């Protein structure tokens, strides 16, 4: 197990470097951050040269990248072009997005797995068909459409929930945005669970467990679920990154000042340090989630032993 963890960590190093370098190159090399700072005006050449100098923009790209990464490991994500340290922006944005992601993730797990179990255990019956149709519809309607429709009908017409989230971002307010954010993933989780349960419920070990007289609760809860949820957990792990990245749409609709909001502002203003910083963190979250999922495998599935 220890060797496996080390091997996986070593494998992550080139991926981390590659991904962050790719983003760095795209943002710094293809855009012109100095021109972006001045908007439509042409910058004074001397001022522009001075800014380029202070931001090390004239150094070769790999050297800029190394300096940037060195900064990150000291907790210094650079300074946004308006003078705020990016780390400070992160400090205010990440708690909000993490709250939203947590709410969405909880909804996704509880509702998605629940629906999947119901459908998988009653394959071919009405409940199964209902879940299939429901998930199909949820997957087909893009998040931003569901977002605006739910905001309009539940938030404005029925006034059951606030149509926008206030600045202190309470958990109760995040319920509606959480549902919107979780929607598509929830449907995938439900379908994956259903497939997995329906496949395993016919397996020999479930029949053995039933035959030796175990109560149904135990057969389903211990034998069936533990085996069926392995592919679901893989999906959930990779989905954490997608949820945090997808929050950009939900945060925009419900006016939540989280990562998506800051990232969007950064992109609009071509604020390269903000964009690279936030995306780097999101990529790290994504890679870490994948690693944790791989390690969880060993806990969940004793058949897998890492040498």
């Amino acid at each position, binding site marked *: 197990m220890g060797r496996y963890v080390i091997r996986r960590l070593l494998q992550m190093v080139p991926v981390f470097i590659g*991904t962050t370098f790719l983003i760095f190159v795209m943002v710094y090399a293809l855009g012109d951050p100095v021109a972006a700072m001045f908007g439509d005006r042409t910058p004074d050449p001397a001022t522009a040269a001075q800014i380029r100098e202070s931001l090390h923009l004239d150094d070769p790209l790999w050297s800029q990248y190394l300096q940037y990464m060195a900064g990150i490991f000291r907790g210094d994500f650079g300074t946004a072009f308006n003078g705020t340290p990016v780390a400070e922006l992160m400090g205010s944005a990440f708690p909000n997005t993490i709250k939203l992601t947590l709410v969405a993730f909880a909804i996704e797990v509880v509702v998605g797995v629940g629906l999947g179990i119901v459908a998988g255990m009653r394959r071919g019956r009405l409940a199964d068909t209902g879940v299939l149709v429901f998930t199909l519809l949820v997957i087909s309607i893009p998040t931003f459409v569901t977002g605006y429709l739910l905001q309009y009908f539940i938030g404005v017409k029925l006034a059951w929930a606030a149509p926008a989230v206030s600045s202190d971002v309470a958990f109760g307010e995040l319920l509606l945005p959480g549902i919107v954010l979780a929607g598509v993933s929830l449907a995938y989780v439900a379908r994956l669970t259903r497939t997995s349960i329906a496949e395993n419920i*016919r397996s020999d070990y479930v029949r053995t467990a039933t035959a030796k007289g175990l109560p149904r609760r135990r057969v389903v809860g211990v034998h069936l679920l533990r085996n069926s949820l392995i592919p679901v957990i893989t999906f959930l792990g990779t989905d954490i990154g997608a949820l*945090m990245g997808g929050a950009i749409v939900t945060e925009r609709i419900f006016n939540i000042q989280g990562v998506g909001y800051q990232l969007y502002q950064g992109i609009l203003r071509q604020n390269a340090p903000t964009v690279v910083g936030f995306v780097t963190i999101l990529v790290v979250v994504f890679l870490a989630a994948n690693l944790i999922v791989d390690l969880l495998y060993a806990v969940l599935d004793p058949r897998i032993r890492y040498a």
Partner: protein
Amino acid sequence: MPEITERAPATTDGTAPAAAPEAAAAPRSLWGDAWRDLRRNPIFYLSAVLILFLVVLSIWPSLLTGTSPYACDLGRSQQGPGPGHPFGFTTQGCDVYARTVYGARASVVVGICTTLLAAVLGCVFGGLAGFFGGWWDAVLSRIGDIFFGIPVLLGGIVFLSVIKGGSIFTVVLLMAVLGWPQIARIARSAVISAQQQDYVQAARALGASTPRMLLRHIAPNALAPVIVVATIALGTYISLEATLSFLGVGLKPPTVSWGIDISSAATQIRNAPHMLLWPAGALSITVLAFIMLGDAVRDALDPKLR
């Protein structure tokens, strides 16, 4: 409960006893079997008809409407449905019906081109990694991981906003570049498992050349899972393009796209909900059609769940 049914060799069908006489006939290939399954699936027909309709619509939008999507009259801004204009007007006074009809082209073209490009990239990289193994696998898989590590929506927003794209070409290229690792992973594992089959070992023992083994023996058997994933991905690519256009970084006017129209309608939802509902409905039905097709193809090609 598993039923013991008489099986024809190479068929994977094992359910309905009603199908038994037919199944006991000549041995069929996986593809023949899948095609027979598809033809019995009403969902396949429903989605195929919808997709055919959408494809025709994107080639000849003028079949369904005589109005140009660019013929706008500010005097009719946000008006509801009227004679000759069944869906009403946008804020700019354009005909919502015409714009909805013309919007199909962008979605269908982006969806199909992205899927083809991502599938080709994924099959080549994933196939090579799976077939040669060793260093090839290590290097190609890590390259795939690098692109896989960037969530597609996030990467799309960052890159498109920097290169200031807006054409169908850039959007397709970007989504395919970020999307291929998903298909490559499937292709890689399909190739690895196909390679362990006896007939591939036999071909190798008989001295078949590498290209012949790849094209004649491995590719046809590794293709099924790739096709399944690619068909389902097609629907999500269409949805993704609309999301990028909605955020203002994907397609840009004058391209007529549902994402752009939804974006401009969303802020006006309280005054003129019709502006949002029609393009949003068209977009959802399009995604639905492709996802249903993907489901039907999966059920036909992956018979584990019968």
